[in-house]
């Protein structure tokens, strides 16, 4: 047999590689198909529909970048963005403080500690629909409603909660906090327990104790955990929807209309699927930018997987 030419050698190499590759594809084919149908195609359709005016039924009209121009003057959208920021700004610091506080509280070798941790996790295991069913009743504006009665015990007059323009969003923050703190407590605990006790011993030998022990050992070593928590909690907070959908429907007077609720509403209440697609692009960009800025600022994500 004559010496193979370079192109022949490349071909045979290619065939060998292909033969080695083929048996592996069946292992990822289902993932790939699901990915194409439920992610890639919707992803493409999001961009295609963002330049259309359509209700998916009769109308279908090319409008170019009109939707993106509309966004600039859409007062409801601006209100929704402010609401989303307002929710996040109230929620994140509270969440970080409460979940860390509780984690420190239960990070001790005391009897029954595991049970307490499990009880704190309880609100997190259930669905937003169940939480909404419960808290719609608890936050009743009646003077003898559960929360109003309890605050009455310390002399605070009954409040209107979910039906009050100023109190609706803080109420949603409270419910979200109640639901999530147990989850973040677990992450804090994992971070706290990953700190080797030798470091504390070493610091003690160097004369540190009490607060200084935390200042120079605990806090610096919890930094990656804190960064992780802030980033994922923020991404979650920007997407808050279920509790708002069930409890307030975006009201009263749009006081709890968040960006996600606005997208939902444009699509499913008004049938503006083109505009809703354009808003989805905007929303995705916002989340991406926030996540990137936070990751960079918090120096998180050196090791993604």
């Amino acid at each position: 047999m004559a010496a193979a030419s370079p192109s022949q050698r490349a071909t045979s190499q290619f065939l060998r590689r292909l033969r080695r590759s083929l048996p592996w594809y069946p292992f990822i084919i289902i993932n790939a198909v699901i990915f194409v149908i439920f992610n890639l195609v919707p992803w493409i359709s999001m961009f295609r529909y963002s330049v259309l005016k359509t209700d998916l039924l009769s109308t279908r009209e090319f409008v170019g970048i009109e939707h993106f121009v509309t966004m600039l003057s859409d007062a409801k959208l601006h209100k929704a963005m402010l609401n989303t920021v307002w929710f996040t700004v109230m929620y994140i610091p509270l969440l970080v403080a409460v979940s860390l506080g509780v984690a420190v509280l239960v990070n001790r070798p005391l009897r029954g500690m595991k049970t307490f941790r499990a009880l704190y996790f309880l609100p997190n295991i259930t669905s937003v629909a169940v939480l909404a069913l419960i808290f719609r009743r608890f936050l009743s504006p009646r003077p003898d409603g559960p929360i109003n009665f309890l605050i009455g015990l310390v002399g605070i007059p009954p409040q209107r909660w979910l039906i009050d323009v100023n109190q609706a969003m803080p109420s949603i923050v409270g419910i979200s906090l109640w639901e999530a703190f147990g989850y973040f407590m677990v992450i804090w605990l994992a971070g706290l327990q990953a700190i080797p006790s030798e470091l504390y011993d070493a610091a003690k030998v160097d004369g540190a104790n009490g607060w200084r022990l935390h200042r120079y050992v605990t806090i610096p070593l919890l930094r990656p955990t804190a960064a992780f928590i802030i980033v994922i909690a923020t991404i979650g907070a920007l997407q808050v929807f279920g509790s708002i959908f069930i409890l307030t429907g975006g009201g009263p007077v749009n006081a709890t209309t968040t960006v996600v609720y606005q997208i939902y509403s444009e699509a499913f209440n008004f049938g503006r699927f083109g505009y809703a697609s354009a808003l989805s692009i905007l929303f995705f960009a916002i989340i991406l930018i926030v996540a990137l800025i936070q990751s960079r600022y918090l120096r998180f994500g050196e090791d993604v997987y």
Partner: protein
Amino acid sequence: MSVSETSGASVEKPNPVRETIIYILMAAVAITTVGPFLIMLSVSLTQDIRFITFPIELIPSPVTLENFQTLFARTDALRWLFNSVYVAVISTLGGVITSSMAGFAFARGDFWGKNVIFVLFLGILIMPDTALIVPQFVVLSQLGLVNTYTALIGPWFASIFGTFLLRQAYLSIPRDYDDAATIDGANLWQSWWQVLMPQVVPAMATLAVLRFMGNWNSFFYPMIVTSQSDMRTLTVGLGTVARSGGDAGLDMAGAVIGFLPTLLVFVLMQRYIIRGISLSGVKG
């Protein structure tokens, strides 16, 4: 100093006063998390209760199942319950198996496009799902899949997070196992199913629990892809109950039905849930 589950900072001399204060604080927090569920249960068993009013008797007299009967009679709750169980079970099984397969391929495979696909998957993982809900609905409605189990289960039939989780699990198994299987004449499927997969069962169990809970509790997506009452999952159906403004007793009966299955899974599978969170948290 004893080795404990806790970090060194809190290992101090036992101090009874301090300990009592800590227990009081912990109990106070526990009351806020458990109390609402106890009241939920109590109200659901109370006769003719229009509103929840305080002070409340925790043990109703008489105890009645009337609210549950009314709920099942007046709404499609039984059907929603069936839908939720069906969708959650199929989604969990499907998602865990496909993750196990893909995780194996990404850990051991040597195939064309591996890195490109891997990075694409990573891209989806960091993508917020809510941003994609409207386009997903558009695509599903064009495919005629709205109000079908295919739509409810579809996206759950593969898990990118699960693929990464299991890839890590497979990577921790020494290559010797693969080599031994190959020498014994096993093909890829056999070495996956018979040799490697049995060793990642704990990771698969963790994933299964997380997927089941996630699917059971999901709200936005199943709400969007179902408009007929008989295709709703329990959470979506309960959302409509909450918005319909019925009796408190009825609402709480619905809440109990939605809560109990997750409570059961949590009690039985707690350690897998906590492990799953710690994994995603620490790894993150």
